[in-house]
């Protein structure tokens, strides 16, 4: 590991090349570059997650930490790691202070692995508009996490308004085990669904995406009942034949009930962040079912017809209407009482 204090982008590029040489053939065959935009407190779990994901998708990991954007004094600190505890992954952790943080791409662009896809992941409050962040504009695939948003109710709406093919959200990824179970349960369905009921936290973006997915696929609009703090806990589908299919999730187990049959149980485990990220990195083309679910739940249309290319919009927080400190205050206050948790 090399640590460079108060350095320049050129130095970082040189140091990475030197580390790669001295580490030998540790990382061979990079599949992609993963740019993670995180807060300082998330750096370790980002590394942890990338390490798990890199086992399936060997990658170059660029972690960008932005600090004190309003500060006029700019400074770049960098840590470089090749192999070692990260496994088949090489990582550059960059801490950008001051105005430099608004031009993060000037440091990141020369570090992108040549001619492999770029994935940008905001592990934290996602940007209001992805086009505001140049690191999102260069990416082929953009991963946000609406569950971390200060305003979970508005987060999905924001994502839908801003959607471009190639966007995806980890709240959708977290639904995969639930969707798998539901699709499995529906395999034995004897007729079409006539109504659907979801018991969940109505503010949880995952539950609302699930509702959107069911609506898009089954053509019925599910009713969401408040689960009073226990997250997504039950989905009930009523079929035209009168049969009811119920999937009840509790503590890593799904109980499947179907009229006329004994209950059955299956594992329904929440996965670590790294495995969710690995699922995201499997396919790097636009995720149409996500767009359809997002469209259904927010009522916006034509998401898949949008242009997948974004153009950077210069957005200076210093000139923004709301001053930065106040916003971060409200965000911590709201995160504290946010129940979240999608698939427990």
């Amino acid at each position: 590991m090399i640590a460079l204090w108060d350095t320049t982008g050129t130095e970082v590029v040189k140091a990475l090349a030197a580390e790669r040489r001295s580490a030998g053939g540790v990382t061979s065959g990079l599949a992609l570059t993963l740019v993670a935009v995180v807060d300082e407190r998330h750096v370790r779990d980002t590394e942890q997650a990338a390490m798990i994901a890199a086992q399936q998708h060997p990658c170059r990991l660029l972690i960008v930490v932005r600090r004190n954007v309003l500060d006029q004094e700019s400074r770049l600190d960098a840590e470089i790691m090749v192999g070692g505890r990260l496994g088949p992954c090489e990582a550059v952790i960059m801490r950008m202070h001051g105005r430099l943080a608004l031009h993060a791409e000037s440091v990141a662009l020369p570090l992108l692995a040549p001619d492999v896809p770029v994935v940008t992941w905001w592990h934290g409050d996602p940007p209001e508009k992805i086009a505001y962040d140049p690191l999102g504009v260069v990416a082929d695939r953009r991963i946000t996490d609406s569950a971390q948003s200060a305003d979970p109710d508005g987060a999905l709406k924001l994502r839908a308004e801003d959607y471009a093919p190639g966007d995806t959200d980890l709240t959708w990824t977290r639904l995969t085990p639930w969707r798998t179970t539901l699709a499995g349960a529906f395999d034995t369905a004897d007729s079409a669904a006539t109504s659907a009921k979801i018991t969940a936290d109505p503010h949880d973006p995952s539950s609302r995406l699930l509702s959107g997915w069911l609506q898009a696929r089954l053509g019925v609009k599910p009713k969401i009942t408040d689960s009073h703090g226990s997250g997504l806990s039950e989905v009930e589908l009523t079929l035209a034949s009168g049969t009811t299919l119920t999937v009840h999730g509790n503590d890593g187990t799904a109980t499947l009930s179907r009229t006329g049959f004994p209950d059955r149980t299956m594992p329904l485990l929440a996965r670590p962040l790294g495995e969710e990220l690995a699922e995201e990195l499997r396919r790097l083309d636009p995720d149409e079912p996500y767009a359809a679910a997002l469209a259904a739940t927010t009522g916006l249309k034509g998401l898949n017809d949008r242009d997948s290319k974004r153009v950077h919009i210069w957005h200076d927080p210093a000139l923004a209407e709301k001053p930065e400190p106040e916003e971060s205050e409200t965000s911590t206050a709201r995160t504290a009482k946010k129940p979240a948790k999608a698939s427990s």
Partner: protein
Amino acid sequence: MRRSASKETDKTAEPSVNPLRDPQDRRLPRVPEPCALVIFGVTGDLARKKLIPAVYDLANRGLLPPGFVMLGFARRDWGHGDFEQIARDAAQQHARTPWREQVWARLQGNIKFVPGSFDDDEAFDTLARTLDELRSSHGIRGNAAFYFSIPPAAFPTVLKQLQRTGMSDNDASGGWRRVVVEKPFGHDLDSARDLNGLVDNVFTAQDVFRIDHYLGKETVQNILALRFANTLFEPVWNSHYVDSVQITMAEDVGIGTRAGFYDSAGAARDVLQNHLLQLLTMVALEEPVSFDSEALRVEKLKVLRAITLPEDLKRYAIRGQYAQGWVAGERALGYHQEKDVPADSTTETYVAVRLGVQNRRWAGVPFYIRAGKRLPRRVTEIAVSFKTAPHLPFAKTDTEELGHNQLVIRVQPDEGVTLKFGSKVPGTSMEVRDIAMDFLYGEAFTESSPEAYERLILDVLLGDKTLFPNSQEVEESWKIVDPLEEYWSGTTPYHYRAGEWGPREADDMLARDGRTWRRP
């Protein structure tokens, strides 16, 4: 989708497509329908080391359907509790995914044990009844796969029992009934035909799954991706550019406790007939029309039928047997000293043979194939060696260290691909030597990627036959091995010291052709 009409007429009819399964939605894994897996010989090594752990891993990855039941059948005086304990130990010890008590607890509730011997009619009646009861207790509508983890000698008895009780009948059960057979698929063409006839007769041919676990390996499937997803390799993948192909399957272990089976089979029947010939077909086949099992099978059969044996079997079909020596720093017994091996055994533990593939693409390219036990290290790889450049515009001394360009597919361990080519030695003079460029699957990737058995069991339950050789393939490969066995009968294999790369005669075989074995 049928909405109202079907309701009155046919209550059990399913909607033709599940609307929750969208072909574009590639996050949802393929999960089989509710079904039972019946394992005969569940107390054996294979079941404990591979099958039960693979079932646990599948459950852990959420790939088993709700209402999956595993039924164990074996001749033991056990209650349900004893078997559960054994299964638990096996899964805990050999599973590849992390141990989760919750997952096992749920799986355990769906594990049943039926004791009995194979000629015991009553035991099979109990088994049939147990399967029937699953219909109401677990919602399994007659789907069951029977896994034969038993010696081939017991096949006819078990098959007859399955036929007698009607368990093998798709129509009678109202669902699918599949059978999974492990190698050896007979010991020569005639016995393979008998066995195929028997199995295909009791079950229908399309419900028979023959396991060649090599085909479940990620790297073997990658051969097809490498060849047919790229433009770089296919243009040179023929006799114009390829000089020779070497396929090696080396093991450092001896025969262990398998003397009973191994001494009657030998290396050619044990691994050449199945694994090595399957690897060869993957390398040599033409582009299939699609990747469904039928299209792929057509191409594989074409290759198997085009394989020719050398005319001079004495020099190009070499058998070896290990004598005592040292392997990995430990003294190793010779084959004759192994437990239960007759002192005059002429069974081979090493085989090397030169095969040809007579078609336009491969005519004239030798395929050197070798497999052996007690070789220096465990490795399976395919090396495609290319012809040297027709003209080298360098001084002769500049390229002395330049060999053939090679593309090496490492099947196990260190799964990956190596490309070997000439490159200039840095310095003021012109000198060219071989260097290797490596693509390595991440170590952790190979650990966490599904084990071959996991993939294959899942495919059986899904009914996907792409990775399973059918009876024709098995018969064609015996047609290649039988003449070799016939020639070898009555001869004594050459000896090699345990820990050597086979007998000297195998080296001579390549030397005669102006080549050498690649050291894997």
